[in-house]
């Protein structure tokens, strides 16, 4: 059986990629995708820890899945709102580069 640490490594890698992407990409759509990566890295972690560390997963098969499902719903909602915002911003400013959306600058 594949050890738990592998899953964790994959998840950390995914999270770091997502984080890196979120911080460095200029395109707002790419940033949104990076955020999705981070969320799913967390999901992997949740499933893996549930499968390996919980005493009897068969006795309570939905506990971790419920968490993941909530994360999915949140992510989906986030994408829907985020994309809508990006499209709206594009219509207004004709760009989706994050650095140029600086109306909030003090």
């Amino acid at each position, binding site marked *: 059986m594949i050890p738990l640490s592998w899953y964790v490594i994959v998840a950390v890698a995914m999270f770091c990629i997502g*984080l890196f992407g*979120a*911080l*460095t990409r200029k395109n707002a759509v790419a*940033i949104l995708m990076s955020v999705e990566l981070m969320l799913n890295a967390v999901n992997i972690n949740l499933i893996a820890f549930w499968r390996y560390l919980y005493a009897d997963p068969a006795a309570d098969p939905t506990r971790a899945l419920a968490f993941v499902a909530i994360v999915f719903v949140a992510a989906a909602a986030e994408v829907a709102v985020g994309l809508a915002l990006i499209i709206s911003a594009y219509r207004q400013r004709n760009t989706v580069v*994050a*650095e140029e*959306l*600086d*109306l*909030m*600058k*003090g």
Partner: protein
Amino acid sequence: MAIETLIWLIPLPPLLAFFAIVLFTRQNRALSHWVALAGAGLAWLASMLIFFQVIGSEDLAKHPLATAINWLPTGKTWLQVGAAVDPLTAVTLFFVAWTVLMIFIYSIGYHNYGQPKGDHDHAGLPPHGAAAKEHGHRVTVMSVEPMYSRFFALISLFAFGMYTLVVSNNLLTLFIGWEIMGLCSYLLIGFWYARPSARDAAVKAFLTTRVGDVFMLLGLAALYKITGSLNYSDIFGSTTVLMQNSGILGMTWAGLIALLLFIGTMGKSAQFPLHVWLPDAMEGPTPVSAMIHAATMVSAGIYLALRFFPLAAMGWEPGMPLTATMTVMATIGSFTALFAATIALAQNDIKKVLAYSTISQLGYMIAALGVGAYVAAAFHLLTHAFFKALLFLGSGSVIHGMEHGVLHTGEHVDPQDMTQMGGLKSKMPVTFWTFLIGGLALSGFPLVTAGFWSKDEILSGAFNGGQWVVFITLAVSALLTAFYTMRQITLTFLGAPRSKAAEHATENKWVMTLPLVVLAVFAVSAGWVGIPKGFPLLGGILPDWFAEFVGQMVRTAPEGGGEGHGSIVPLITSLVVALGGLYLGWLTYRKFGRGQSDALEKPLGALYAWLRNKYYFDELYAMIFVKPARWVAETFSYQWIDRKLIDGFLNGVARIVWWLGERLRNGFDLPVINGAGDVTAEGTREMGHWMKGMQTGRVQQYMVVAISVVVVLIAFLIYRYSG
């Protein structure tokens, strides 16, 4: 209409005339004097009706015509005011009505009604004359008085005051009338208010009489407190209360109150030492002099003294020693009579002589009252009012004629200076003859003039009362009176004119001479009503109506009159002094020439200067009253108290507060309050400015910050809880 109602109505027409003139007819001269005349005429008519109604009453003193209304509620009782006519009122009404009416008529002429407006005349100054053409020559003629209507309004109000005083049945309304007259006297003496001398005279008259009025008011207050009423009959009825000891100077209440009221009389009737205002009051127009100094205001003082004779004499019977108050009255009266007569000797102003003679004659009346000769005093009041009004109006006529001469010739002489006159007998015949009658009446020319009868009664009153000092003083004053009267007549009318103005003086119009004639008739005939029964030869031909009528006012039988002359001495005396004085006056002054000095100046020496300057009383009063008052006002109150003490205190307070404010501002307000506010605002701004830098608007940068913080936090937590 009941005759009682008519009494109320007597004072009203002049009052209405006053308001009508002030409110409506000011602009129209003719209408103004007609309104005033109508007012005076109606009052005259009502007075005459009442006079002839009561003249035959037997018991008028006990049952006067009276009417009263409730005026002010005083607890359970009422303060009543009312009008009443008793013999004294009736007699006073008679002469007041006549003289007032005559003076009103005379004023029309005196103020040059019908003459053109003056070229340079101003309100507040006597008219200066107007240029006109006469037979092709340019001449200056008299000009009309600029404040013509104002004059008639004021004398109407004055007449109202006098009538109110006379018909009152109580002291309160009497006092109101008294004060109205005081006000009018002030306004009329200062009628030509642009002249500083007139202003000063007005203030002097007002303040001097005020001294008397204050004491009079004290007397009224005491009277009201003791008797509970100001009504004459109530007062004289409360003998028992009034005879109690007042505890002041050992006098009875009656004596004390009569003394206080007498001080009021002294002010109003210009008795020594409050006489100083009356000569100065000559600054007013001559009708005013006649009105104030003969017919009304000064008479009001004597009227009050007569009214209150029963108080002064309470407990006294003829033949007994005089009461304290009566002694005071006799002393002051006879002293004033002599004192003023001596001053009149040395005056050159025609009106001043008359003013001093008025003071002297008023002194006579007071002295007569003082020795108990009530009827004689009232009689002299009556005759004096007529002949003194006549003399004043006559002197006004002379002055008016002289002014005409002055304007005509352009000569600069004082139209009132007797030394500049002379020879006016032929120029102004009516004025001369009437003035002569008035002058003879004043001197007491025997038998034909009114003044003789009344003066003789006073002298015999003093003589029969055993008051030798008073008798001799009055006899000497009578001699002096005859002397200066003759001096005045001689200087004014006889001899040759001593100035061009006198040469060109002319007789005045009938409006001025008619009143003279009417008053002259009274100056002669008024004496006939009081010829004593006991008088040699003439006594008994005419009934001694006056003594019987007015004598009812005093319970005791009148002296001198009814009982006849106890002795021939007073009669001889009055004959000698009157004729002797007149003869001496004529002898001394008949040869008075132009520019000559007075014949008395050398023989009298230093005394003449004293007389001339009125014994320096004005200077004395200036020194002991006016100067200290000025000093108190100017130096003490203004400079010291006001400027230094009060202003100094206020300035000190202001300075302290200023200093405190400055300290507070610099030490607290600016650094602490302002500083705190400023620092808060500044700090907030700085902070905002600094924090603005973080707000780049780049979400990724925010995220870096957020993640860095999270990492640091996690690191901290691990470090904290793992080791």
